[in-house]
């Protein structure tokens, strides 16, 4: 599958497989195209994007699918959480409204049922006093809490695939750890498979069972987690591992071939 925004392809000839039960980490630096890949699967790219190829999800091609059908998948079988929790939630609606909204978008749940489910979800993601929190607005909660709410929404309907785009990058380190632990338990409960997009190998080590490394729009290496960490094959992967604190090697590795899509 290839995706571009009207210039050179941002994601080039990517081929990935994700099985039920996988937590696939997609690692790369900014500009590697990993976010674009994630949004591509979700069908949430901006208007000037072009996608070629196919994305097969539960036997159906997402690229060719009509919008209405895709919409019925989003939130139910296919969902996402994004990087910045403070801006992920609509500031003018209560978090209760926003959780309930995902139920209403996918079938006729009564208000009472939806509300009860929302309370359940909130306590599952570790938010205290969920009944009162329903009426809270996003700006009244911290980043960590907002991300928990976002996770609750994304996992409400037990999706087959959760795409988590840098879910902890915008959080404080201590909060990051909490959210990662939460993710771990939630994944086991609710999700079929997870595509975890991140630049942080530490996160990958904690949550993923397989890893794909992305550089300049291409997947340069893909392997089970332990194998990648122990014996990386691609130059870039080796560089990434070398840059982890505490594991610095003595010599500077040569720059990997290829050009990133954009310099930051």
């Amino acid at each position, binding site marked *: 599958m290839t995706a571009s*925004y*009207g*210039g050179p392809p941002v994601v080039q000839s990517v081929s990935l497989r994700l099985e039920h039960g996988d937590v696939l980490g997609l690692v790369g630096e900014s*500009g590697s195209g990993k976010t674009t890949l994630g949004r591509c699967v979700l069908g949430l790219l*901006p208007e000037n994007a072009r996608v070629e190829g196919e994305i097969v999800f539960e036997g159906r091609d997402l690229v060719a699918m009509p919008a209405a059908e895709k919409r019925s998948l989003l939130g139910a079988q296919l969902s996402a959480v*994004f990087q*910045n929790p403070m801006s992920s939630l609509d500031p003018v609606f209560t978090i209760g409204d926003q959780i309930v909204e995902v139920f209403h978008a996918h079938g006729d749940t009564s208000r009472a049922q939806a509300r009860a489910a929302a309370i359940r979800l909130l306590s599952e993601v570790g938010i205290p006093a969920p009944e009162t929190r329903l009426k809270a607005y996003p700006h009244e909660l911290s980043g960590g809490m907002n991300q928990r709410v976002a996770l609750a929404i994304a996992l409400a309907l037990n999706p087959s695939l959760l795409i988590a785009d*840098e879910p902890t990058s915008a959080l404080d380190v201590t909060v990051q750890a909490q959210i990662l632990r939460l993710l771990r338990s939630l994944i086991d409960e609710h999700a079929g498979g997870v595509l975890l997009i991140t630049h942080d190998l530490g996160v990958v080590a904690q949550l993923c069972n397989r890893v794909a490394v992305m550089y300049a729009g291409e997947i340069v290496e893909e392997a089970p987690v332990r194998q990648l960490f122990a014996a990386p094959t691609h130059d870039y992967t080796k560089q990434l591992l070398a840059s982890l604190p505490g594991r610095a090697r003595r010599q500077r590795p040569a720059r990997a071939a290829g050009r990133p899509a954009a310099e930051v």
Partner: protein
Amino acid sequence: MTATTVERVGARPATRIQRVRSRLNPTLAVGLGLLAVVIVIAFVVPLLSPYETDEIRAGDALSAPSSEHWLGADNLGRDILVRVADGYRISLSVAVGSVALALLVGLPLGLIAGYAGGWIDNLVMRPLDVLMAFPAILLAITVMAIFGTGVAVLLPAIGIVYVPIIARVMRASTLATRRELFVEAARARGASRWRIVVRHVLPNSVGPVTVQASILMGIAILLEAALSFIGLGVRPPTPSLGLMLSDGRDFMANSAWVVAAPGIAIMVLVLAFNLIGDGLHDWLDPRGRARPR
């Protein structure tokens, strides 16, 4: 606040020169073109026209637009095209004059308020805020009420309305530049902070001020027309598009062009200034057009 993943690759202009040229946009071009047309009409038509402004030709009264009178004639047989040209000259002079006055007073005020900050800022801006609290036309009417009518009063009347607006824009510009520059100015070799800030503020503020000025000129034309229409603008026999409209009202039932022509004339000129203002804004801030991501 939004998560920026710098992944998008758009087509970017190759060189700096190319980028500037691509910013001279159609809006600005059309606006300038229209303005040029108006200026030509205002100054060239009277020279070429066989008619005088006040030439009363009873026989031609209320004649429709024809090859003799391109825009028709009013109830006294006066050629409308020539009168429109005269009206344009007055409108242009009022627009330029009032904005120039406002700049003269507003720029220094805004500069002082932005630079000094603190109680001086308050001292300058609070009365200006009160002034801004009045609807523009009300303020102008009030001034005319006290001091009488005529272009000489009209210019400061409209100018006063604009002083707070210009001062605000200038103040914002000054504040923005001041923040950046105080660090530099602190390291300046002997030059006073004031001089450094001013030297940087002025070029930076040219942009927003010009955009604002252009829009204000358009509004000045509307104000002058409205004031003249209600009898509080220019003093007859000075021609004015607004006056033509109020005179023509009585006759419009059968001679629509008597009110259509001056109105369209006003609209064209104001449109020109608005296009210029928009075009300038886009030219100075192309980011506004191309949304990222």
